[in-house]
């Protein structure tokens, strides 16, 4: 129960209708005794300053799509929600830059920008709900990272409310900037453990004039053939924006074909896209099936794809759900997808997996009994470690996060990470125990 004292203190910052007592802890954890909903940066700063001075712990959330992503404490004193800190601060059409408040939802931004033939060149999961601040703080990216990079390539400036309430700007509003340390990078992917990102400035790209998606399906057991094909395509002068390998189950769900499929996205002027389609048809391996989706059909495919990531603890049948982010050397993606597919038999799990053959990042979504999930994560983590890669658990109910470390082994340079945290947040106010090594 929230004490009268805590309520009174918060009430001196915010009106009572934006201070909500949280009666139950969420099964994904990362809850708060009280949820506060600031509408201004001053309010965010005042809340943090209060927490910092009074030894309170604060969790931060946007719309909650990453609530199952890390965190070893079930509930903090305060859950700071940025869901009402929304809107566009500045869009300079000619400069192709955009500054937004952190709680703004990604899809709303893309729809707004489309009127100007512009876009943020990121393709995060759950774009309908995910907020700009959350995407940046968790460094979420999708298959198009191959063509356009990730938050670290797109974000040019941030406003960050530090744990003591001061506001620090990093970067700026220009697309090229080496004044001082590149502090943007510290906060991208830091899981809110260093400061509350209040504003994000990104550089924009023009919307592609034309796009298509080639879906190339391979017969079972042809991973070597897939690897040869991907190597050949990457060694050509074609410019695919995705080269995503889909597991048979995912391929079945998205396009009705139960076999490994490579999704090759092409975005450029139409003549260029057509030319690349022809090239890919010319190197199409024997016994594969090729299908081309153009324009809106390609977009529809991707929209469905981005919505598949789990955000609730269980699916409708009460199976536990998890999602893993795996990083390996590019072509080892074939091994990861192959091994994850085997989990459906060995662990009796529903497995949907995909990975970028041009950038090495995979996502594996699993559904099934708790104990099978725990064992499967351990198994896959072990084999990924042998490949020199890492496994991060992007989504898992709170109870299971006590058994499985979200981040895996601490890196040898952990003392630097811990040193940075201690410097920026000495009282460990913000998202305590949410990140690597219990930071």
């Amino acid at each position, binding site marked *: 129960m929230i004490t009268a004292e805590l309520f009174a203190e918060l009430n001196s910052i915010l009106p009572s209708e934006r201070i909500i007592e949280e009666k139950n802890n969420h099964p994904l954890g990362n809850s708060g005794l009280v949820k506060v909903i600031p509408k201004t940066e001053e309010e965010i700063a005042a809340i943090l300053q209060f927490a910092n001075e009074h030894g309170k712990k604060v969790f931060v959330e946007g719309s909650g799509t990453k609530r199952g992503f890390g965190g070893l404490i079930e509930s903090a004193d305060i859950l700071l929600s940025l869901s009402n800190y929304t809107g566009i601060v500045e869009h300079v059409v000619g400069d*192709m830059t955009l500054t937004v408040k952190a709680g703004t939802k990604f899809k709303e931004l893309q729809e707004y920008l489309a009127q100007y033939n512009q876009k943020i060149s990121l393709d995060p999961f759950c774009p309908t709900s995910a907020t700009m601040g959350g995407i940046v703080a968790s460094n979420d990216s999708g298959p198009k990272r191959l063509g356009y990079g990730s938050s670290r390539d797109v974000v040019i400036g941030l406003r960050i409310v530090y744990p003591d309430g001061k506001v620090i700007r990093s970067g700026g509003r220009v697309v090229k900037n080496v004044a001082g340390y590149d502090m943007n990078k510290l906060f991208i992917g830091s899981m809110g453990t260093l400061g509350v990102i209040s504003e994000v400035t990104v550089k924009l790209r023009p919307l592609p004039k034309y796009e298509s998606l080639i879906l190339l399906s391979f017969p079972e057991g042809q991973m070597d053939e897939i690897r040869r094909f991907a190597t050949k395509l990457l060694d050509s002068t074609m410019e695919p924006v995705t080269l995503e390998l889909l597991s048979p189950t995912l391929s079945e769900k998205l396009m009705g074909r139960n076999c490994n499929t490579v999704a090759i996205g092409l975005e450029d002027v139409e*003549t260029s896209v057509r030319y690349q389609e022809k090239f890919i048809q010319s190197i199409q391996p024997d016994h594969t099936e090729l299908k081309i989706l153009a324009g809106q059909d390609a977009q529809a495919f991707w929209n469905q794809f981005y919505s598949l990531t789990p955000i609730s603890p269980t699916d409708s049948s009460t199976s536990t759900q998890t999602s893993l982010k795996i990083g390996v050397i*590019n072509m080892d993606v074939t091994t990861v997808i192959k091994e994850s597919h085997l989990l459906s038999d060995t662990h009796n799990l529903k497995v949907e997996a995909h990975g970028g053959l041009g950038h090495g990042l995979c996502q594996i979504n699993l559904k099934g009994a708790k104990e099978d999930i725990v064992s499967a994560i351990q198994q896959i983590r072990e084999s990924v470690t042998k490949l020199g890669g890492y496994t991060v658990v992007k989504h898992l109910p709170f109870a299971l996060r006590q058994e499985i470390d979200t981040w895996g082994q601490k890196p040898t340079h952990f003392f630097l990470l811990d040193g940075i945290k201690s410097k920026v947040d000495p009282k460990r106010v913000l998202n305590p125990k949410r990140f690597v090594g219990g930071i």
Partner: protein
Amino acid sequence: MAVKGIKSNDRHILNLANIVGDARSIIYHKEDLIAYDCDGFTLHKHLPKAVVFPKNTEEVAALVKYCAEHQLPFLARGAGTGLSGGAIPLNGEVIISLMRMKKLLSVDFENRRAVVQPGFVNLKLTNSISDKGYYYAPDPSSQYCCTIGGNVAENAGGAHCLKYGVTTNHILGLEVVLPNGDIVEIGANGIPDEPGYDLLGLLTGSEGTLGIVTKITVRILKNPEAKKTVLAYFDNVEDGSQAVSDIISAGIVPAALEMMDKTAIEGVEAAAFPVGHPKDIEAVLLIEVDGIADGLDEQINQILGVCRKRNVREVRAAKDEAERGRWWANRKTGFGAMGAISPDYLVQDGVIPRSRLPEVLSRINKISEESGLRIANIFHAGDGNLHPLVLFDARIPGQSEKALEAGSACLQVCADVGGTITGEHGVGIEKREEMRFVFTDEEIIAQTDIRSVFNPDNLLNAGKLFPMPGRCVEIKKEIKERSS
């Protein structure tokens, strides 16, 4: 055991020589040290204590450990092409030169990455992989001699970063010797998004103040299928600037979009690589698009259309690779070319929002008029990165100081319109006071706090990157004395 051939009574020199093992791997006589008293920023000079040339990571670590234990200030140096004074031994540092760690360690074409030592020259990487159709994207103008280690320190850019990004977008892994001599490996396998704070991103562009990079994994790219390059001459700068904005607004992402003004054109035409730009032109644009050949004509036609709409006097595409090469040589040697029309010049490196270009250029003009110094403008117009070149004669009393003031005033203009003080050259010594144009004291402290995590005693490259309270006037006076 003493190293043969070392004649010094200084125990530190003897001990440092011991670490690198032979007399040819250390410089300590004053007359030899003079070559290391500055880098590409020549308005400030200071002698180092010694220059050592380690051959491998272990030697670097041992040197650093020795310096740390004996509280000797030290810094790392590559080819010394930096333009902001990042490698100048302000405090009589031991310079750890990485020029003997210059190997290409491995190339993995299938996974598109290469591993190099820090002293490996930027252009050599592209040259080493071009036969297979690959290249390394960051292309600073000094790429024929600058090192990739130095590029990492400065987060170097180049003409083609408009489309392909700067150094930080191409770094996948670093081996670093920390200021206490510990060796850490970040992104060991070159896999993106390694769990933890993004130290790769933080270290890149930290101007050698957080650690010494001893091994670098970089991304390599496949050459684009085709490139097309266009020159456009304008009778007024306003039209040229508008054309830049229009090209970007048309949804084109050029690989490069460069601009030079009349004074700059005079310089490049008087120097080693003239290409016959008309003398009476106010602005020239060099525009390059690359990608799938079938898609380029459409983009080129759009660009030609935009230029005509903006009253271009003449616009043409390069007829072959040789002509394209000449145009780029003319542009890339632009800074040095100012030597042909002025005894001295000072390069600045501001960045502005693209749309403010005409306004900023007219304000820079005004600064030129008020200071009585000519200012040539060469810039990466596509990303708003200006290089005003202040022309002066250091032999004339007061001119060096005036040039510094004019340069600083240009940066103030950039900051005023929402831009920044450096886009690719770094802060170094040169712009540390100007950091205040863009950051508050609190924001600067937030950065020095991070430095203290890596470099708590501030022995590594001290006095760089951040302003020193109350020292502005003093430094400018010192610079004036040294350069006059």
